[in-house]
């Protein structure tokens, strides 16, 4: 029998099944067994296997015959379908024990050793760090992240699962893809305690890039100029009106806006519920709220949020508490996007990005959005999924 002239592209897949557990329930990540237990207790379900499955299905549709090498069970085989080759079995697999960071590292090494030429992994920044640790400082294969974590500050992720499939398919065809070194970063806990949202650099992976399909690294923020935030806060207050209830997303911009409204005690990385008083100041009604609490509010709230600096994610990164259900209830007219002109400029023309987990909602919100940049000032900016 003659071998095929062109062998199918050999692509590795490693899924971190516990990635993203903390997001919807308002935890700041899913790293560590304690946090994962806490998340499950709050009713969280893992989203990673389904997102990986979406990518693989799309990849097969685009690229046809691909040879998928993966790990058993929820670490890949469950998402990759019966034609995938299982080249690794995690230690706890038969008993159904939750997987650990060590399992991720072992699976990555096994899949690459078995001959994968491109590695897709599904998770967040914590998973990216494990991939980096497994591959070492001079990775032999390019890597692309399928976004499923809570924190995704690293530049190794596709903008959403379908985009990961597009990039991988282009890589398999050998067309249009450029390999580039991309930073693996994770939240800098020391900076966070000091009141800044910053990111720490852990290393670089080689990433296949199609323009606009791989997200940029988040830029650290030492805080926008206070005068700009005063203007945004005044405009926000005018739009919402006295007595209005509003949900405020995470980040330095929204934190500063809340402070300008006289509520300095919002959660820097969480979602809060505030009410505007008659005098134009605001008070925090619910701090660090979960998705279910936001759905249970007495009236439909306004939703004020700011994209992640340098990266542009508006929904679906670090603010998964803003569930598709809540966003649908509020509607686009109650969605207020806040950013300083400098923050928009730092996006260098890249669009704002959506990944709410509900593709139809992402499509409905796509187009152009009016971003509040100051008092009586807005920018019309492109938003896409």
């Amino acid at each position, binding site marked *: 029998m003659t071998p095929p002239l062109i062998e199918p592209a050999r692509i590795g897949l490693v899924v971190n099944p516990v990635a993203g557990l903390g997001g919807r329930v308002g935890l700041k990540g899913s790293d560590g067994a304690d946090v994962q237990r806490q998340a499950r207790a709050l009713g969280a379900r893992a989203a990673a296997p389904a997102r990986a499955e979406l990518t693989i299905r799309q990849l097969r549709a685009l690229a046809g015959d691909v040879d998928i090498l993966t790990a058993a069970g929820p670490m890949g085989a469950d998402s990759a379908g019966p034609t995938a080759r299982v080249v690794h079995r995690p230690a706890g697999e038969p008993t159904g024990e939750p997987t650990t960071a060590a399992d991720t590292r072992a699976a990555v090494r096994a899949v690459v050793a078995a001959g994968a030429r491109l590695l897709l992994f599904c998770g967040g920044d914590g998973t990216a760090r494990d991939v980096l640790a497994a591959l070492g400082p001079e990775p032999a294969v390019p890597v692309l992240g399928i976004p499923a974590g809570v924190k995704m500050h690293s530049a190794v992720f596709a903008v959403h699962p379908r985009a990961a499939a597009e990039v991988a398919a282009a890589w398999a065809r050998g067309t249009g893809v450029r390999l580039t070194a991309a930073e693996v970063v994770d939240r800098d806990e020391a900076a966070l305690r000091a009141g800044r949202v910053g990111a720490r650099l852990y290393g670089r992976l080689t990433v296949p890039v199609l323009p606009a399909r791989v997200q940029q690294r988040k830029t650290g923020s030492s805080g926008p*100029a206070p*005068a700009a935030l005063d203007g945004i806060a005044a405009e926000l207050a005018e739009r919402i009106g006295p007595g209005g209830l509003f949900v405020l997303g995470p980040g330095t911009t929204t934190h500063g806006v809340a402070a300008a409204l006289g509520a300095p005690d919002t959660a820097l990385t969480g979602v809060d519920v505030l009410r505007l008083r008659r005098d134009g100041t605001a008070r925090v009604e619910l701090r660090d709220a979960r998705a279910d609490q936001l759905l249970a509010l007495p009236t439909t709230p306004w939703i004020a949020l700011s994209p992640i600096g340098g990266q542009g994610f508006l929904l679906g990164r670090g603010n998964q508490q803003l569930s598709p259900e809540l966003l649908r209830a509020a509607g686009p007219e109650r969605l207020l996007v806040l950013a*300083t*002109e*400098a923050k*928009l*400029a*730092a996006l*260098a*023309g890249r669009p704002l990005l959506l990944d709410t987990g509900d593709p139809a909602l992402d499509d409905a919100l796509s*187009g*152009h959005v*009016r971003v509040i*940049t100051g008092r*009586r*000032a*807005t*920018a*019309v*900016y*492109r938003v896409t999924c």
Partner: protein
Amino acid sequence: MTDRRTPSRARIAPKPALRRFQQARWDEKLIFELGSPGERGVLPPLPDPAVTAAVGSPADRLPAALRRTAAPALPELGQQQVLRHYLRLSQENLGADLNVDVGQGTCTMKYSPKVNDTFVRDRRIAALHPAQDPSTVQGVLELAYRLEQLLKEISGMDRVSLQPGAGSAAIWTNVSVIRAHHAARGEAGQRDEIITTAFSHPSNAACAKTAGYRVITLHPDADGYPDFEALRAAVGPRTAALLITNPEDTGIYNPRIAEFVELVHRAGGLCAYDQANANGILGITRAREAGFDLCHFNLHKTFSTPHACGGPAAGACGVTAELAPHLPRPTVEFDGERYRLDDGGPESVGKIRPYLGVVPNLVRAYAWIMSLGADGLREAAETAVLNNNYLLALVRRIHGVSVPYAEGRPRVEQVRYSWQRLSEDTGLHSEELGYRAADFGTHYWTSHHPYVVPEPMTLEPTESYSRADLDEYAAILAEVAREAYEEPETVRTAPHRSTVHRIRHEPLDDPAVWAVSWRAYRRKVLGEQP
């Protein structure tokens, strides 16, 4: 032996390829800190006692409320001390007449011909008073009238006001006319939004806001053009106007400009063309042909009058016949024999500044246009574009530079470059490269906030600079870039041979610290109690 035979050749070294510039550093005090009580530059004679006895002191004629109780605390210096002070300060500058000033992109630092200053100093201009009766100043009225005719031809507009005192004053005039237009149609309340773009001059947004409008900014698309779909999303029944530049600060000409204008017109809005810098399109394309209702020129950018460190400058605001009744008053009219000032009707926006405008700059601009003629204006534009694309060809070869947007296409009169790659490689910033350039006798500025183009550098050679000038400028940039890679500390600690001047940005953004007057300096910097 050799030395004795050719002593001069042995001792004189040739000039280096790059000049070893060494700037003066005087550590000069502020003028308020100089001099001593009673020192005077001029001692005017007292009036004749008989005159004083007859009419009293002129101060007595002023209302008591307007009279000072104490003399102002002005510096007290002799003439020589004043002259020396300002000469020293001038030696600590890199002025437009001193360096290859192509680094102030967006400012259009073309040469201001000195001969034109002799017309301004002529007593037939210099000795006029703005309040003279028009019958006694027919000459200057004729000049203003003729300049208006020239600018009408250059822009295609039906009337041009020369009253604005600068570019921003001209934009303010545009916005005032727009407001008056909608008010006359009973739509002033409904039309409360003005649209502009991220690469248009920020004075457009600022003037609109000052006039009470809500401002909507369009960001560039992936090719650097203003996003047409964003305009579609922004425009509507609340749209008062679009204020837009073309080419924008990137030097990229927006070929869809007529569609932008048409879309806004269909919604009932007006379109104002910011032609402050029309240097790449003089005699080639006009505001009228693109469908604009208003436009303005900065005479100090396009028409060679001096920038003069922030003024006085002059702006010219052109409008269609429909908007002409809203122009500032007075206008200059000519009946075929005499020139007169016309105060216009009730729909005029009134005065943007007193009298005719900044007459010395009107004289210079008129002289410049007349010396070039129509063909000369077009040649100036073509030379400016040629110079720009020549410099672009040199600069894009420098390692670490990129030319964002519209890949491979030529630029009009300027280019916004990016040092992002060099910055990522070396950790140095564009601003620091500009500081280091000062050690070679030139500079560039990076005041392009917010930085839509990262690590920006905007170069605009105009028609004034020679090929040798541009070669030198590019060689300096190449040398600074080489240093950034090979000896970054040299760049990081620059300038070494310039006056001082590493700018601390924080005080510039902080009203609690900045000091723009002597009084504020004493309170905020010296810590004196008022």
